[in-house]
């Protein structure tokens, strides 16, 4: 994976066009409740934080899936809805809370980067979400955080 969603919370206005785009891309309807990206509104801190999967290397969601429903496609962890039985083990295994059970479908959902052209980034009017080289600053910050909460710190690899 050479590109990733790079999120600059300073630019987010909380318009939720990303949630609209994501839900439309994946469900064919405008339905933020079924979006894989969620904008958190920290109203009292004057911050909006778009939040989604960072496609972390550890991929506990994938490792833990009892039926092999989550695959790694060039670094992107993708749920195969047809295989998923909705057991939710991945939803507790992911320490970021970015794999979620969706009652409407009885399956889990997570960001799949829309197969390489993420709808959220295309829809963002302020470039708070861009699909960019992983080398870009900001993404590294998120990665660093992901490592901090890694359940298995590694000396190498």
């Amino acid at each position, binding site marked *: 994976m050479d590109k990733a969603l790079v999120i600059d919370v300073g630019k987010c*206005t909380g*318009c939720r*066009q990303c949630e609209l785009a994501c839900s439309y891309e994946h469900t064919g309807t405008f*339905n933020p409740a079924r979006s894989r990206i969620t904008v958190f509104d920290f*109203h009292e*801190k004057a911050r909006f934080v778009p939040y989604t999967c960072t496609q972390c290397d550890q991929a506990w969601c994938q490792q833990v899936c009892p039926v092999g429903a989550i695959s790694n496609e060039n670094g992107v962890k993708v749920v195969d809805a047809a295989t998923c039985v909705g057991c939710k083990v991945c939803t507790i295994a992911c320490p970021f809370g970015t794999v979620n059970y969706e009652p409407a479908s009885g399956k889990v959902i997570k960001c799949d980067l829309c197969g390489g052209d993420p709808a959220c980034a295309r829809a963002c009017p302020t470039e708070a979400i861009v699909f960019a080289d992983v080398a870009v600053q900001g993404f590294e910050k998120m990665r660093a955080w992901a490592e901090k909460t890694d359940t298995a710190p590694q000396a190498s690899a």
Partner: protein
Amino acid sequence: MAWARKILRVNLTEGTCKSEPLNMEWAMQYLGQRGLATKYFVEEVDPKVDPLSPENKLIMTTGPLTGTNASTAARYSVVTKGPLTNCIACSNSGGYFGAELKNAGWDMIIFEGRADKPVYLVINDDEAELHDASELWGKSVWHADDWIKEKHQEPMFQIAAIGVPGEAGVLFSAVVNNKHRAAGRSGVGTVMGSKNLKAVAVRGTRGIKVHDQEAFDKAVAGAKAVIAGNAVTHEALPAYGTQVLMNIINELGALPTRNARDVQFEGANDISGEAMHEPRRSDGKPNLARNAGCFGCTIACGRISQIDPAHFSVKDKPQYHHASGGVEYENAWALGADTGVNDLEALTYCNYRCNEHAIDPITTGATIASAMELYKIGALTDAETGGVKMEFGSAEALVAAVDAICEGTDFGKLLGLGSKRLCEKFGHPDLSMSVKGQEFPAYDPRGIQGMGLTYATSNRGACHLRSYTVASEVLGIPEKTDPLVTDGKAGLVKIFQDLTAFVDSSGLCIFTTFAWSAEDIAPQIDAACEGDWSVENLMTVGERIWNLERKFNMDAGMTAEDDTLPKRILKEAAKTGPAKGLVNGLDKMLPEYYELRGWTPDGKPTEETLSRLGIS
């Protein structure tokens, strides 16, 4: 498609929540939101109803585009008969509430009757249930928002609520959603309070589809590009919000100051959009923390401010030290220029309080301004103000007066009458800067002539959001007209009124029209909805809505005599600025306007006009 095709009828007297199909025949005539809810209201409610009686109804309504990815498709409206105006009231709000309601599968909620004890409504998609609100009664909007989320363990609820003034009958109480987005005007929150309805909490997960998705994608993408390419919607509004206007309108000599005694405010720059960016001397931080958008908005004019914690208004009140909704232009004008107060932090505090307790900041500021004038001439004294020195320019007085309204003190109750009833009570009715009981906002009709006709003929009492001719007269949108003349303004007002009426019925924000023409809007509605939604038809829909509102008001007892302006605007010439020496020429515009509308000389829609528009 686009419409959820379902309405929720909540009978508060009986405690029942029932689903019924949306009347699609009416939807084809009135589109949605403002228009469609007005149609329902007019069909169901006696125009002579006492606004605060159980017989009045209150409708929360979305438009067909609400909740879609069209830019600004956040809007919902509250329609009722307003206690401030005794006219049809229709207040419009953004935030996230409307889209959530739509996503729960409802085009509108009709509240009828009155609960025997305080209740709040919880909607989870198809399920709607009334809950006991006795623990919330007497508490603020902010408290109610937190409390309901905690009680139901649902942080994703979008909540609209009233504050203590709405419970207590303050006549300009608003309905505030998302803690700082208001259906602000005409006392819609007062009606909600009279029904013992504290709040509505919604979670919607059903999803929204449109009629022709491919055409919709194309229309929406094109329209978003127009917003992104427009200097007002892409640069000025995100950077300064509506507050970009403060210095512009002041320079134009159209900033009503000290209860419209003046038309220019020497402190305008201190409370302007530019000032909100300036680092404060006290803590080096600007008042403005960031801009914010409502649901789906690619403009993001919203202001999120943070008050200087050392400011006198919040010194011992850490509960106001966090960020929240900052002043928009109308609020900054009403609380600031109109009271002569140039203290941005005080204005921000008062704005917080207006949101926290759901009162209309325009009427709040303008009523305080009228009280300051009554105080100046000695008609109102310390005995009535509880010792507050109500002097123009006093930030302390402003803060004390707003607190008084929120807290319901004796002085607060007086102010809670609004300026018209307050000034009448103290023997000076002409000091109320209102039309049909509602205070006019931040554009002086002596400096912007078209706004005089806008205020005089607005169906919900004085208001800028019924025909914003400022766009043309000041900003040159769609074309520049001279703000100091009356020629051509009748036609301009009519077009703006009709355009606004259909935009307000679509789910879109009227601010898009800084960039969008009707030709940008129509294809989005046409793609989203079944039926013919050409520009021509939409303008007819707008005209139909306007006439239906007008007819309701006439049936409610309004006459052409109510289509007027405060004496000061008609008789006292502007003292400074480009409009120096001018009064508003309403008498030159009004007859022409009636004629263009197809109304009789005494302002009644003719049978011919009504039948042409399909209004029975």
